[in-house]
């Protein structure tokens, strides 16, 4: 897995490349938490799932953890480019209902 981040104002864009599972999710968590600690004005986390080849409940767990953290600090988390196979596990896990899911960056920013 490889993670790219880009901050524009109070929004942190995160692109995950590869598989998000028990092995790789700690690295995702660390990367995001570091940025959130560094810039306390970040209020919106936008995670791009275009290049996510796999996710299981360990991966969903760290996404949910970041969702909770953003809510705590009065912000929010959006997911973009969630493909059909990923959507299924998002749905089963209940994340689909609580998270903002958008088609692309622009839509996520608009809401």
């Amino acid at each position: 897995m490889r993670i790219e981040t880009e901050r524009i104002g109070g929004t942190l864009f995160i692109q995950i490349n590869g598989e998000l599972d028990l092995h790789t999710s700690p690295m995702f968590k660390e990367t995001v938490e570091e940025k959130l600690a560094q810039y306390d004005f970040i209020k919106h986390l936008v995670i791009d799932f275009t290049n996510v080849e796999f996710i299981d409940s360990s991966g969903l767990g760290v996404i949910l953890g970041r969702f909770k953290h953003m809510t705590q600090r009065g912000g929010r988390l959006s997911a973009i480019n969630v493909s059909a196979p990923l959507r299924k596990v998002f749905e089963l896990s209940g994340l689909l209902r609580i998270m903002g899911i958008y088609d692309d960056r622009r839509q996520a920013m608009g809401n």
Partner: protein
Amino acid sequence: MTSNYLKLRFPSLPENVGLARMMAASFAAQLEFTLAEIEEIRVAVSEAVSNCVIHAYPGKPGLIQMNLAIKNNNLVIKIRDYGKGINDIEQAKQATFSTEPERMGLGLVFMESFMDDMGIESQPEKGTTVVMKKHPERGSANAGLSRIS
């Protein structure tokens, strides 16, 4: 015809979760699973092997056995550990139940949803065995057709 099988033994290291799911997916490709079904198999195996890594051997890595077999056009996956075991299997199966605060408690739910059949046997301090089965939807239709034609 000898029907195929693949028996694996590896230590419960996080990096082996990905290897295990890749091997299960490659083995499963012998049957006529759709890509969506292969994805479901990958998730189920990932959950079962992750459970061995986190719950069965929380302290230091232990042995995981994964047996893959084809039986009557079914994929049969058996995943076994010799770790901590599960006290109450019915409770463990409940959605969002987890003995680890940071985890979602959805592993067993995913395994049950994505496979046709899932069974667990466990003994505290002896270990846990999970058996999962899946039948290719398309494969059964084709088998029917080829018998007719």
